[in-house]
């Protein structure tokens, strides 16, 4: 059955990007892998709902994103019962992901509201257009644009002290080289 082999191939190809998207959303590699697994299972079970000729990767991202949002709402309710255990975990994402070098950025991302976080990652890292991101998030293109802008502004606020310093140092070096 060639169609099924194509499906499997396309899904395999999408896995690295799905994992990157998932871990950017949740800040935890174990949880990201579970999200991807669940996404693949759902996609496989609902192959019929994929329209041939459309973007397979966008379809899988949509499934992952919806699953994350459902999980997120469920977890929030759990947190309200279990005095902030999850909030505590959120403050140390670098301990969970093993990607220490991006610890501060990951932490800052987790401080964004999820709708801004997903918009920024889809457009700023996954390489989707505003239109594609709007379809994945089921909202208007203008909404995605404003979410991305707000996300960028907020991240800049969160990361500014360190980055300002870096930018200053770089600039100093450039000036010194130019002189």
């Amino acid at each position: 059955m060639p169609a099924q082999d194509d499906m499997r191939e396309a899904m395999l190809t999408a896995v690295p990007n799905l994992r990157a998207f998932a871990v950017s959303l949740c800040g935890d590699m174990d949880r990201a892998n579970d999200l991807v697994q669940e996404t693949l299972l759902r996609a496989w079970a609902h192959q019929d709902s994929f329209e041939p000729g459309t973007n397979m990767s966008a379809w899988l991202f949509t499934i992952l994103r919806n699953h994350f949002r459902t999980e997120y709402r469920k977890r929030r309710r759990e947190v309200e019962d279990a005095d902030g255990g999850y909030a505590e975990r959120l403050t140390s994402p670098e301990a969970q992901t093993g990607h220490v070098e991006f610890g501060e950025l990951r932490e800052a991302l987790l401080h964004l509201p999820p709708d801004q976080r997903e918009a920024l990652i889809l457009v700023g890292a996954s390489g989707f257009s505003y239109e594609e991101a709007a379809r994945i998030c089921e909202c208007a293109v203008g909404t995605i644009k404003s979410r991305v802008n707000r996300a960028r502004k907020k991240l800049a606020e969160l990361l500014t002290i360190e980055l300002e310093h870096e930018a200053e140092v770089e600039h100093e070096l450039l000036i010194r080289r130019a002189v």
Partner: protein
Amino acid sequence: MPQTEKLEESPNRGRLSRDIQRKIGQQLRAMYTDVVNEGVPDRFADLLRRLDEKNK
């Protein structure tokens, strides 16, 4: 003279904020690419193979 100060300060701030946005964009993509470059962990290749065999 506060007005001169403002004139001197504003392009500097604009430059900083552009630099910061550029850096955030770079870091975001680098962080993302780092995970993409890990490729496909065995568990996912195995999962899809099992699903595929079940359907055949």
